[in-house]
């Protein structure tokens, strides 16, 4: 069987790869430092893919695999939406759609002391930041940013939460603004919180608006920019 190993990395960049594909051959790229992001694994001189997705490259030397799943793998400094499952003496147990429960320390709030520990009911939706995410350990979360300020983290009141894939969450958070959000924002007024773990929360003055926004976002996953704008116009025409 012919072994088709390409020596130029440009051939695999921006194309779909599946687990096991050898995407880079280090023996042909001497004296270069490359950075491997998520989804890539080093076996001596061959870099192979571990996830199915698109291989991306960013100058000067970063390679990673972009993929979209329903399951979230915690990463440090991600902002996510978690649901309180239980509260113990030192931390709250949070469901983050990942392989393990997240631990939110009871003191990880702005101005948090032993005397003013917040009381969250089971089922409360929280906007959180991942502090530590090591494989095999439960990820540690926080309701403050790196400097200790509250910065929009914490419980989300009212509104409606729905689940999406991780790829769609990343598209919604990309800059410049995702076309579907721009098109919705021109006609409707609403508040939105996107978690990189595949959860989105929407709040608006009337339930009709919330439903339209949620449906528009859920429909936009496989559409291109222009198609998203057309879809949003179609939805808004029907409610007006």
């Amino acid at each position, binding site marked *: 069987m012919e072994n088709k190993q390409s020596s130029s990395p440009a051939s695999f960049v921006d194309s779909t790869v599946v687990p096991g594909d050898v995407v880079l051959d280090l023996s042909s790229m001497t004296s270069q430092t490359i950075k491997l992001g998520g989804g890539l694994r*080093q076996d*001596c001189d061959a870099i192979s893919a571990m996830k199915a997705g698109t291989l991306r490259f960013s100058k000067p030397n970063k390679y990673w695999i972009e993929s979209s799943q329903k399951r979230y793998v915690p990463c440090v400094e991600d902002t996510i939406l978690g649901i309180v499952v239980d509260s113990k003496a030192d931390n709250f147990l949070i469901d983050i759609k990942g392989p393990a429960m997240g631990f939110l320390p009871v003191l990880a709030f702005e101005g948090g002391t032993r005397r003013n520990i917040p009381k969250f009911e089971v089922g409360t939706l929280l906007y959180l930041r991942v502090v*530590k995410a090591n494989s*095999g*350990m*439960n990820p*540690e979360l926080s309701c403050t940013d790196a400097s200790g300020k509250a910065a929009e983290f914490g419980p989300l009141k009212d509104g409606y939460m729905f689940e999406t894939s991780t790829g769609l969450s990343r598209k919604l958070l990309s800059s410049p603004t995702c076309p579907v959000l721009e098109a919705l924002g021109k006609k409707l007024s609403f508040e939105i919180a996107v978690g990189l773990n595949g959860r989105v929360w929407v709040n608006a003055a009337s339930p009709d608006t919330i439903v339209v926004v949620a449906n528009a976002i859920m429909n936009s996953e496989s559409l291109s920019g222009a198609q998203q704008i057309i879809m949003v116009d179609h939805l808004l025409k029907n409610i007006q």
Partner: protein
Amino acid sequence: MEEADEMVTPGEVLGKATDLKAGKGAYAASHNNTIYASLTGFRRIQAPPPASNDKRPTVEVTGHKAHGPVPEPGSVVIARVTKVMARTASADIMCVGPKSVREKFTGIIRQQDVRATEIDKVDMHLSFRSGDIVRAVVLSLGDARAYYLSTAKNELGVVSAESSAGATMVPISWTEMQCPLTGQIELRKVAKVVN
């Protein structure tokens, strides 16, 4: 040495003192010249050594897991790390000194017992990973669930570890081990190799 026959419990009659000699786990009662078992285990009979004058075979009671080595405070143990958490690491004790244990003992290494200096800045994930083999000393019998172990000495710590690529890593310093296949350096609390 003959095959072990049946399971005996303390107090069971093993034979007459005129036919047998009492070995490990057995004793001879002087008032009626009978050999009784003093431990639980399997009754084994050993042939008499040819050089001695006494021609009686020896009966002993062995083979039960309660006769295996047990960790004691102060003993050096080899353990395999099973779980690493924010402030503790759990480990399965495999050997006490040079002997391997017969039943499962669990140990816990707390954050303050990982090393001797800067104990509140210890990151458990940078000291141990699941699957590492560590040499530790037993601090105390601990609680009902696990012994308390400590690696707070130079010659204690990770003895052998596997890298994420699957190869056995080589220790470089007391904090670093390197994978021979990929060259990646991983952080552990490494035990000093003493020859």
